[in-house]
């Protein structure tokens, strides 16, 4: 059974089916999209019991020859690093599709692009051939461009083109790096598993150059300082569900690439870059949190909080230890869940009030208690309250970082404080204090909104109380990557 191919290409079949439907049949289009994403989700969940948690090898591997003359293969496979991200992608895509049911204009195209995007994201996490990886990587770009550019906010065209060009600029360097790697192996190969073993033949100088090529592409996606400025703009302009995908999955592609390609294929280059990486991590954490503190737009604030949270992941990665790697991967998953719900929740209020200005509200907790409760929970999870998902992963990232970089990690703790500050301030201004009479008629969450957010909330609590649920998948691979027990 080619399970991974099925998971990946069912959404593509759905997309083609959507394309074949007449555009007036909105219900049928929505049902097709949900069904195909749901089938992909169900299949990926079905893989959970089949996944061997005790093995650090690639699993569910599929291999077909694609372009034999250049030794390009169609190879898919997952391990403890990519499998959780695969699950996150199918899950968040489904959730975001539920959140997209409110889309009214050009429904057919929207769902088409959305499903194509899902294919691209899934492929990135599964591909084990650099050409295939690159194809899937670029495949994410086009749908995202249209999703922001057509269904976005007032400055959607600018945001879309900026996102597209910025990311494409990174990809070009990645392509060069891929070619460099290809021509410097004997025999020439794009096979990622083979390349992970080939690096011993490469000189430090070569590894550094190739590392920088890849790093540029990944850093833009993560986004790592100073390549992060496309993110707030794209988030503010993107429709809610696309923001969710962007924060929850797309950013993870950068970190995944950093671990899979930069660390595993170019260890010398990675270690050479480590002193810069830790500095970038700290800047992401502290500076991202400070920028978030200065925001008046809720969505932009959450966007900058993503910069801050990706900093935690980078801190864990820079620890180069099993705890750090596990923490970083877990933090990716948790950030996906928590920030996904934050964006959905901000979307809920925006749909009603048509503003996201923090100071435009006040006292909403009395008016919309369910909404306030869910928002409080998501905010506390994001600022790392124990018992909710963010805490353990954040702590592991810090543990990983602290073992190597004491001073840097100590500075990063200030970022935790600033994170608490901006979330608390937002909660106070929006939900506490006297009720702003302008919003006296605001209605609480609808059933559809609850359907999209409550699953995320449940997972937020579940992973907080029992982190083993997710860590069990990650640990073996993290231990193997860190070279522990050797």
């Amino acid at each position, binding site marked *: 059974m080619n399970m991974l191919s099925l998971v990946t290409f069912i959404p593509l079949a759905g997309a083609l089916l959507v394309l074949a439907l007449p555009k007036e049949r909105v219900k049928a289009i929505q049902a097709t999209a949900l069904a195909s994403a749901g089938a992909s989700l169900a299949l990926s969940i079905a893989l959970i019991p089949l996944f061997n948690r005790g093995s650090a090898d690639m699993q569910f591997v599929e291999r077909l020859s694609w372009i034999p003359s250049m030794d390009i293969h169609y190879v898919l496979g997952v391990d403890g690093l990519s499998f959780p991200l695969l699950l996150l992608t199918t899950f968040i895509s489904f959730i975001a599709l539920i959140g997209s049911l409110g889309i009214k204009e050009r429904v057919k195209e929207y769902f088409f692009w959305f499903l194509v995007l899902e294919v691209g994201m899934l492929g990135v996490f599964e591909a084990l051939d650099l050409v295939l990886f690159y194809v899937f990587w670029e495949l994410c770009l086009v749908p995202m461009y249209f999703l922001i550019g057509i269904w976005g906010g007032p400055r959607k065209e600018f945001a879309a083109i*900026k996102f597209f*060009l*910025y990311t494409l600029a990174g990809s070009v360097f990645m392509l060069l790096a891929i070619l460099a790697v290809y021509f410097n192996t004997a025999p020439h190969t794009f096979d990622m598993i083979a390349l992970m073993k080939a690096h011993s033949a490469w000189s430090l100088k070569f590894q550094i150059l190739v590392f920088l090529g890849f790093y540029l592409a990944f850093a833009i996606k993560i986004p790592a300082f*100073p390549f992060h*400025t*496309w993110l707030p*703009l794209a988030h503010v302009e993107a429709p809610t569900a696309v923001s969710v995908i962007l924060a929850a999955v797309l950013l993870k592609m950068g970190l995944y690439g950093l671990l899979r390609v930069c660390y595993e294929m170019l260890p010398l280059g990675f270690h050479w870059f480590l002193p810069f990486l830790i500095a970038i991590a700290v800047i992401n954490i502290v*500076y991202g949190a*400070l*920028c978030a*503190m*200065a*925001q008046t737009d809720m969505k932009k604030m959450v966007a900058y909080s993503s910069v801050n949270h990706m900093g935690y992941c980078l801190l864990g990665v820079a620890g180069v*230890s*099993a*705890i750090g790697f*596990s923490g970083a991967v877990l933090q990716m998953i948790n950030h996906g869940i928590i920030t996904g719900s934050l964006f959905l929740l901000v979307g809920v209020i925006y749909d009603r009030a048509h503003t996201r200005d923090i100071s435009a509200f006040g*006292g909403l*907790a*009395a008016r919309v208690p369910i909404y306030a409760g869910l928002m409080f929970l998501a905010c*506390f999870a994001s600022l790392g*309250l*124990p*018992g909710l998902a963010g*805490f*353990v992963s954040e*702590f*592991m990232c*810090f*543990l990983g970082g*602290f*073992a190597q970089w004491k001073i840097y*990690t*100590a500075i990063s*703790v*200030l970022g*935790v*404080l*600033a994170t*608490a*500050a901006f979330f*608390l*301030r937002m909660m*106070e201004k929006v*939900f*506490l*204090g*006297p*009720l702003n009479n302008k919003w006296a008629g605001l209605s609480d969450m609808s059933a559809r909104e609850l359907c999209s957010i409550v699953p995320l909330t449940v997972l937020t609590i579940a992973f907080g109380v*029992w*982190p*083993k649920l997710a*860590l069990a998948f990650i*640990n073996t691979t*993290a*231990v193997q990557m*860190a070279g*522990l*027990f050797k």
Partner: protein
Amino acid sequence: MLEHVYLIPLIPLFASLVILLGFKEDPHSPAPYLGLAAMGWCLLQAVSIFWGVAGGRIVLPYEASINWFPLATEVAGKAFSYQMPIGVLIDGPAAVMLVVVTLVSFLVQLYSLGYMHGDSRFRRYYAFLSFFTASMLGLVVSNNLLVTFMCWELVGVSSYLLIGFWFEKPGPAYASKKAFMTTKLGDCGLYLALLFIFTKVGSFQIDQVREFATRGYFGMGAATAIGFGLLCGCAGKSAQWPLFIWLPDAMEGPTPVSALIHAATMVAAGIYLIAKTYFIFLAAPIAMEAVAWIGLITAFLAASMALVSYDIKRVLAFSTVSQLGFMMCALGAGGYTAGLFHLTTHAFFKGLLFLGAGSVIHAVHTNDMRSMGGLSKKMPITFLTMLAATLAISGVWPFAGYFSKDMILESVYHHSPVMFYLLTAAALMTAFYMFRLISMTFLGPDRDHEKHHHAHESPLVMTVPLMVLGLLSVVAGAALAHDGFVERLLSFPMPQTPGPEFPRALGLGVSALVLCSLALSWFLYGRGDFSIAEAVKKRFSAVFNVLEGRYYFDQLFLGLVAVADGAAKLAFWIDARVIDQTFVDGWGLLMRVFSELSALFDGLFIDRTVDGFGGLSSDLGTGLRALVADGQVQEYLLYAAIAVSLATIFILSR
């Protein structure tokens, strides 16, 4: 019977979730009784454990845990997988704290039935109360420092929810944020301390870390750094200088919540954590000394601020800060038993004082003591119980506070006589401001007839908790100190340090001075004539202003907040203007200019050249055509013949 001790934090947690999710908001909701039942069960368990320990039937410590999640790590070149146990560790201090926390929580919940009656969010209040207590109980029983820290943070978030319970008012909303952020500032140190501990020894289990610490695995430098980190966290939570600023504002919450925070569930946590990690401080004398001095400074400053406040709850809040300083100072001076003993007795009389103040506020609907007076006849139970608590906190024999405070002074004297004298001064101020509170509230003539007229004793559901705590304020000290029981229960093995012995006469002298202080307080405030007090205030107005301004520490922190906000604005300015608009968009602009230039070049030169060629051939054609006369076939033939012959010559000549 200890095998089910893990249920003690879990049952209130469960009750809280059931109340929150399973009940509807309704002033007559039965939800409170569920909370009370859960807490009552916990109280029974805690008391039976304590009883078992006292009777020698239960041998401590008891420990049990399950594995939570694995952490693969490497410490000192040894790779292993740490299984992060989550479980319970019951030792003497934990057994005592269990009783204190469950008892005060139970009484507060009972009292709240009356105090919060008719509140529109009655159900939510009880859910939060149960959650608050559950977090604190988790902190008390946990055998793992990381789990302790997690409960610590949950205590923080519960206090945030409860201080801001009446969130429609800006005051509570602000106070809750202030409390959370100030304690979070301290928690940063604690967080780093935890990271350091794990990096050093690869474990969070308290008994394992203790084992490593006593074997000297930490080294002086690391232990000192960890000690200071822990102290940061504890100073935040237990409202020590300079992080005490949040506690006086925390009274914006409902008064029973204040009682809970001040007596059992929040501020006690810091003292308790210092005691739990005492082995670190024993390995780091500098950190230990810092604990003592922080405690001393806090005790002194807070007591002086309490002297001039007119808000009944604020006096009590300063008093708590000051008393926590006493405990901290004791712990730092090596008085482990004394610090924890005072934590216990203080919980009873401070809980009582807050509940009593709540009863008074309930009756007169104001916090301002200047509008009270003469309430002793109207509210005899409140008056008598609060008087007992006042004598206890002042340290009058044979009330509870006498025994614990005496023990603190003794151990501090042993450590350093200078500290002893400063602490004694704080103790004298305690007696003074507490009796000032009693005088202004209950004695003398009534100053606001309207309020006095409407005042009445609170219902039984509120006075019964007062009476229970009143009884404990009288007898708990003597009972625990009897036959050295408290030394056996709350002890920590540590090396004997040389130091002067506490002369008994000095103890008697302190007691006499306390009585003088009480008498002076009565003389100034108890007779209904404040003229001397006012004259003193006028004479020393500069000092009074500093005290009423709380030594301006709030301003200091507001300044810090302003700095942070400025940094945030600057960071965002750099982000938006410099990085984004200058470099990223500038790059785009540069590219556009470049492409415009190349388009211009293209149009001006390349395309012109191409067009030029086209024009040339067109011109040439037109020119040639002019040479030829139209329609003359012979002429065409002639040209053709010339062309052919020229071509032939050209070809042949090669």
